[in-house]
């Protein structure tokens, strides 16, 4: 299996993206911003289609679109962060724009529209070239490093924003920076598992980690490990079963981990190993 070049590319890009998504996802769940992550993942769809319609590299559209909306959401939200009504209204419109781009693109060049739409929505981790995979891996590693750099103040600002503000932590700025990181990660993951499915890689491993431990350091490592394991297992499954799309396999494994973690946490709690509230 490893002799195939597309598998090596998929594993290289997928592993780095999994680490970034696992780490960022941990904070997404902690900050209760899963819906924002969801919105940004759908924005990735519009961004990619807009780039396709304009004839640019898909990745330009992905990154520009998600970062622009991330900043927009941060600006609209004010101090409390965008509430879910604002997020919902904004991203339903952005999806509408995506439909327009799809229409413009498919009327511009006959045929092929279904392929781009499907590729954007569901990703194509097996279709990455060696160059694309290397760029994706580099960006993902950069994201992890950036998150590690702001992790301590971000954790403080998330858990107790008032005290953090009094201590001079730039809470507002950290919120914006985090949303931008989330946007970048959404653009990254969209290449591998698609705009519709990347929420699985953001929410499921992190949700599982939150079920199992309240310790932030352990939780973040666990979340990254589960995401990584999901990508490896998903790629292997999709390679073994050709009719299984790789994106679905990865997200399916991640969702399975979440389910197991929920059951396990319930049992541990039943035996008193974990506190009932955390």
């Amino acid at each position, binding site marked *: 299996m490893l002799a195939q070049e597309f598998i090596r590319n998929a594993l290289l890009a997928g592993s780095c993206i999994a680490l970034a998504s696992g780490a960022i996802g941990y904070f997404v*769940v*902690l*900050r*209760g911003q*899963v*819906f924002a*992550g*969801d919105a940004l993942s*759908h924005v990735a769809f519009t961004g990619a289609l807009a780039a396709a319609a304009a004839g640019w590299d898909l990745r330009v559209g992905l990154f520009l679109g998600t970062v622009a909306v991330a900043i927009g959401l941060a600006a609209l939200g004010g101090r409390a962060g965008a*509430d*879910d*009504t604002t*997020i*919902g*209204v*904004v991203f*339903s*419109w952005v*999806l*509408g*724009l995506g*439909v*327009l781009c*799809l*229409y413009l693109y498919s009327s511009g060049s006959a045929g092929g*529209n*279904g392929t781009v*739409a*499907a590729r954007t*929505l*569901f990703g194509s981790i097996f279709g990455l070239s060696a160059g694309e995979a290397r760029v994706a891996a580099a960006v993902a590693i950069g994201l992890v490093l950036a998150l590690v750099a702001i992790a301590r103040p971000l954790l403080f600002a998330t858990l107790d924003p008032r005290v953090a503000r009094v201590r001079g932590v730039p809470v507002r700025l950290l919120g914006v920076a985090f949303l931008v990181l989330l946007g970048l990660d959404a653009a990254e993951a969209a290449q591998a598992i698609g705009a*519709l*499915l*990347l*929420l*699985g*890689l*953001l*929410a*499921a491993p*992190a*949700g599982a980690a*939150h*079920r199992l431990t309240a310790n932030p350091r352990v939780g973040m490592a666990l979340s990254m490990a589960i995401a990584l394991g999901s990508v490896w297992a998903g790629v292997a499954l999709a390679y073994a079963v050709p*009719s*299984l*799309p790789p*994106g*679905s396999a*990865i*997200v*399916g494994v*991640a*969702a399975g981990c979440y389910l197991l973690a*929920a059951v396990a946490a*319930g049992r541990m*709690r039943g035996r008193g190993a974990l506190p*009932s*509230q*955390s």
Partner: protein
Amino acid sequence: MEPQLSIDPVSDVEQLLSYPFMVNALEAGTIVAVMAAVVGWLMVVRRQSFAGHTLSLMSFPGAAAAALVGVPLAYGYYSFCVVAALVIATGAGLSLGRNRARESAATGTVQAGALALGFVFLSLYGGVLESLETLLFGSFLGITPGQVLTLLGVAMAVLIGLAVVGRPLLLASVDEVVARARGVRVGALSVAFLVVLGLAVAATAQITGALLVFALLIAPAASAQQLTARIGVGLALSIGLALVVTWVGLGLSYFTNWPVGFLITTLAFLQYAAASAARAFAGRRSRTGRQIGGPSGPTAATGASAGEPLAQSVGGS
């Protein structure tokens, strides 16, 4: 046959209505708009937009599964949306650590897992990509009179159901503690509302597609709540705005040939932006006096205090 927009609006409307497919589309759109506006209004009050969005996406795996098994797509829509509503309600109730973070993680996982499943169904079915586009973004061309009748039935059921539980549901949404004290079964109501939301979303998705249901569910309701805090007025306004968006969107789509999903979402967004601007303007003018409708209507009144209990109440107790 080529659509021509003339100066005379009456003849334009006559031209629209001369095609049976447009009449069907307008009838279906009207039913969907009224239902989505009412259900969406409650959804916004209850701050369950994320659950609503997740349920609306369930129509995609539903339709893909129905296509794979070979039953009418509508069965797939309704069964998947309702089952997903029950799964989310159960998941949130099971989670012992009751907080929003965990609930939203559960909702997100259900969403991604179901979408992944949907893509598997689609690839097993043979990957008909054009129908994928229709599933996700809707089509108003192929609506049959039979579908309109089904929609009418579902809409009646949803609206009657909401009318029956409306009063306790609203109380539970706005102030859960008081509702519990008065003996309202908050948990059961929350599950019931999610199921109703699932039904409404499944019906709407057949017209607007899985990804765009949200425009009709959330934008008219959110705009109405920007403009008024009163329940009756707000509901009526929400319905009115949803109808305008749907009719104008369908009409424009016919004459411009642009995708209806884009037109409807854009109109809905503009309307929300206008409502927000109007409220900000009104707020500035009356800053010295009493603020109109409070800081942000009923959502602000319920949001900060009721957001957390509402998240817990899904399936709780």
